[in-house]
């Protein structure tokens, strides 16, 4: 430990800590471009120059470790002049690009200008031009003109992923950061360089121009992409999720995230199941005829059509968009019938490792306690690729949560989750005559899925709680729209057994509801006194990792 003062404030920092980190401890910000805590020190941007007593020249704070009795000043005139000078150099050839630059709003140059510069341009010569809008692969777009040569991206590929993919080319004011010839960015972790880039030189193709960053609202959440459960912020605006960005959590993902995870928000915006759908022998509004997003209008239309349908002769079995009230009534009716005639054993419940712990627990309790279900299956997604860094093969963020839910919900009855393949087998063998499915699909081969869909037509009830449209949803007797991870609060339990909280981002899309609420309403419809245990959440093992709040 070393004791020093920074701007007159006493700091105690471990030996080897650099001045940037030490200053952070007392709330003093030292501006940096090239410094990043996870990367090696380059000390090449010179933005972090600070004055240290007894040192003749200004020193780069990122490279200077703390020492006993050091007296550091970050706000002296010399430092300010140096900062403004560095800014002036950096901006000398910077294009006037803010209007078309995606970084505007989270750009270090903009932020630092307002704090450390605030002077006008003195240059009277033209700017050096370099290639713009270069697609360098990996979903990253490079604009060389905007680059401040901090080399964070270069060091990232050198040090974190270990495959050097970028480098500096040319010299002097012609210097450019770029990829090696004919070798576009590759690998599963390219997106991180976009986060690393302090300016708008590297932008993320998927996000480019979709939304201005200052419009984005942020919700702390967990990536639904795999069982790692990387901590992310869901960045959204006006009911649409625009991107996921990694959130610092040393225990899980440090500050990184894979490209696959970055894309895992897309199902929130696209192909959503917006309304409850019932497959009925009545004429009414088919799902195909109704694409309107305005729920009030839709509700009125549905009501009208339903009234009409009531007075007509039965028609073919069609998927009909109905109100929640009606959908729950139909589902309740079907379930009651099955329970009455064949008992709870004839009902299979597929739990979803895509849904939260709370949702799964509610379903388990409802099914086991009230319907007498014994057959629980594990749904979710099929395994994919994994690697040694972050990605895991299990593409479900909450498999451990499902198991925990089963344990908590039905521990005394010795229930266990069987595989999804068992569902297909049990349905085909006629063991099950009703299915309650959480999730959009089953983790089975396309062939097995087709068999299930055709077999499902023989079942008395297929009640699917899904967020998106799928063939399973189309085969359901009652399809109930459920909320995605971005729309609800809850807990994911990752592969390491950490309970991590999700915070709600966007408002519920369409008429979707969290599964907990769906089950609660369904139970009420069936006449059960069912309350999903709220307190259980607090009582769950508190192994939440730091940062996962």
């Amino acid at each position: 430990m070393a004791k020093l003062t920074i701007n007159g404030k006493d700091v105690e920092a471990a030996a080897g800590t650099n001045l940037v980190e030490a200053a952070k401890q007392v709330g003093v910000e030292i501006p940096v471009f090239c410094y990043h805590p996870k990367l090696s020190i380059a000390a090449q941007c010179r933005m972090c120059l600070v004055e240290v007593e007894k040192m003749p020249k200004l020193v780069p704070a990122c490279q200077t470790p703390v020492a006993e009795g050091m007296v550091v000043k970050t706000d002296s005139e010399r430092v300010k002049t140096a900062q403004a000078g560095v800014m002036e150099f950096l901006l000398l050839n910077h294009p006037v690009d803010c209007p078309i630059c995606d970084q505007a709003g989270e750009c270090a140059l903009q932020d630092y200008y307002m704090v450390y510069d605030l002077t006008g341009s003195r240059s009277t010569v033209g700017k050096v031009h370099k290639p713009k809008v270069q697609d360098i692969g990996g979903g990253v777009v490079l604009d060389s003109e905007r680059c401040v040569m901090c080399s964070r991206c270069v060091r990232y590929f050198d040090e974190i992923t270990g495959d050097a993919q970028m480098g500096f080319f040319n010299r002097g004011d012609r210097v450019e950061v770029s990829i090696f010839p004919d070798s576009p960015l590759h690998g599963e972790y390219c997106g991180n360089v976009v986060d690393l880039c302090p300016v708008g030189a590297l932008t993320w193709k998927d996000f480019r121009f979709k939304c201005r960053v200052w419009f984005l609202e942020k919700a702390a959440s967990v990536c639904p992409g795999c069982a790692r459960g990387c901590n992310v912020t869901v960045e959204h605006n006006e009911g649409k999720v625009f991107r996921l960005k990694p959130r610092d959590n040393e225990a899980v993902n440090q500050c990184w995230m894979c490209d696959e995870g970055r894309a895992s928000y897309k199902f929130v915006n696209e192909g959503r199941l917006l309304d409850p759908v019932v497959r009925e022998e009545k004429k009414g509004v088919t799902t195909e005829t109704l694409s309107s997003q305005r729920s009030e209008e839709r509700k009125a239309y549905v009501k009208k059509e339903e009234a009409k349908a009531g007075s007509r002769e039965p028609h073919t079995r069609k998927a009909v968009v109905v109100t929640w009230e009606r959908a729950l009534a139909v589902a309740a009716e079907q379930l009651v019938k099955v329970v009455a005639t064949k008992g709870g054993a004839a009902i299979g419940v597929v739990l979803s490792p895509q849904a939260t712990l709370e949702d799964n627990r509610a379903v388990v309790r409802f099914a086991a306690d009230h319907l007498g279900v014994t057959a629980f299956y594990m749904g979710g997604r099929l395994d994919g690729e994994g690697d040694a860094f972050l990605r895991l093969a299990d593409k479900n963020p909450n498999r451990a949560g499902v198991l925990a839910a089963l344990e908590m919900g039905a521990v005394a009855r010795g229930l266990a989750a069987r595989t999804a393949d068992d569902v297909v087998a049990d349905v085909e063998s006629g063991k099950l005559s009703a299915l309650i499915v959480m999730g959009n699909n089953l983790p089975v081969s396309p062939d097995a899925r087709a068999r299930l869909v055709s077999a499902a037509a023989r079942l008395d009830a297929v009640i699917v709680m899904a967020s998106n449209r799928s063939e399973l949803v189309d085969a359901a007797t009652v399809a109930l729209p459920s909320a995605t991870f971005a729309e609800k609060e809850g807990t994911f339990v990752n592969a390491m057994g950490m309970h991590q909280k999700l915070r709600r981002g966007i408002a519920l899309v369409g008429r979707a509801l969290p599964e907990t609420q769906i089950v609660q309403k369904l139970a009420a419809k069936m006449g059960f006194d069912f309350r999903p245990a709220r307190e259980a959440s607090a009582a769950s093992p508190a192994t939440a990792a730091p940062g996962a709040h």
Partner: protein
Amino acid sequence: MATPETARDPLDVDDLPMEPMVLKMGPSHPTMHGVIELTLRLDGETVRAADVEIGYLHRGFEKMGEVSTWNQVFAYADRLNYNSPMLNELGYAMAVEKLMGVDVPERAQFLRVIASEISRICDHLTCVGAGAMELGAFTAFLYAVKAREFLYELLEKISGHRLTVNYMRVGGVWLDMPDGWDGAVRQALTDAAGVMREFHKLVTRHRIFFDRMEGVGIISQEDALAWGFTGPCLRSTGIDYDIRKAHPYSCYDRFDFDIPVGDKGDNYDRYLIRLEEIEQSRRIIEQAFDRMPGGPVVSSDPRVALPEKGPVYNTIESMMNHFKLVYDGIRVPPGAVYSFSEAANGELGFYIVADGTGKPYRVRVRGPVFAIMQALPQMLIGGMIADIVPTFDGINMIAGELDR
């Protein structure tokens, strides 16, 4: 209690069932300025009790202030007292500048004062004109409106709009005055004064008008102070409190003007004070034009004012500055400040709290009429139904700043 009751009963018929009439006036009464509800208990034509219900024009100014950037609030401030938007803008701008410690250029100060005083004249013209109209003198009202029109045109010339001016900015004003504007102002003030002479001749000394205004809506000096009166309503009771004199702000200390005060605190006093204040405002404007300094009209502090367009288009420094000010807003350092100015109806105060972000944490408005409206029942009691609206007009309630 019992004595006046029997004294007032002319028929002396004790067994005649009599009860006071409860009358709801408003909120959609045609002559209520803005929407407000009065519940009256009437004894014949005489008002025995009154109750004021406000809030019908609540538009959430203060809440909107919390979700807008500092400069966006000007667009809402315009709509507080919609008769004198410039005065509201001045009050708000001064509050923000006080908190930030921004220096406003001389010329901007003068332009602000001129625009504000024009607004004040407009407000008073509306008030005295509407007052005449409420007494049935429709022609007089239209004359006042005609005079006001001359001035609205000036506001339109300098700010682009008549009512929703959005002219001031933190640190200065939007643009310098257009060429020839000073001449136009002097001309318009002369024209307006000519029209107002006719107005004055039509009503001021007419006995019907005098009788309707004199001794109506009286408030005593002590009561006025106790209720928190400010502006013409306070001055009508004989107290010469005008913030422009008492706590000079902007550049008011450089101008020579008088504060008109009344004696009785009745509607006639308030009417005469407004009439006289129009004259005084005219004096201020003329002095301001005579002493108008040159220079910029908006602060050169890059933390406050948008940079000029030329550099924005062509240099990254100004472009970044511009961007930060646009999407972040002006970063006002954390703190709280109360700033007050003399609006047309009295003390317009802004209590603003900043948390260091680009948006106000809180914008509290002390609308002058809010305090005065509390005393409306007191001023109405004992008067007649026909006195309600003139008294109401004497207060010059503007629902925009009352309900906010």
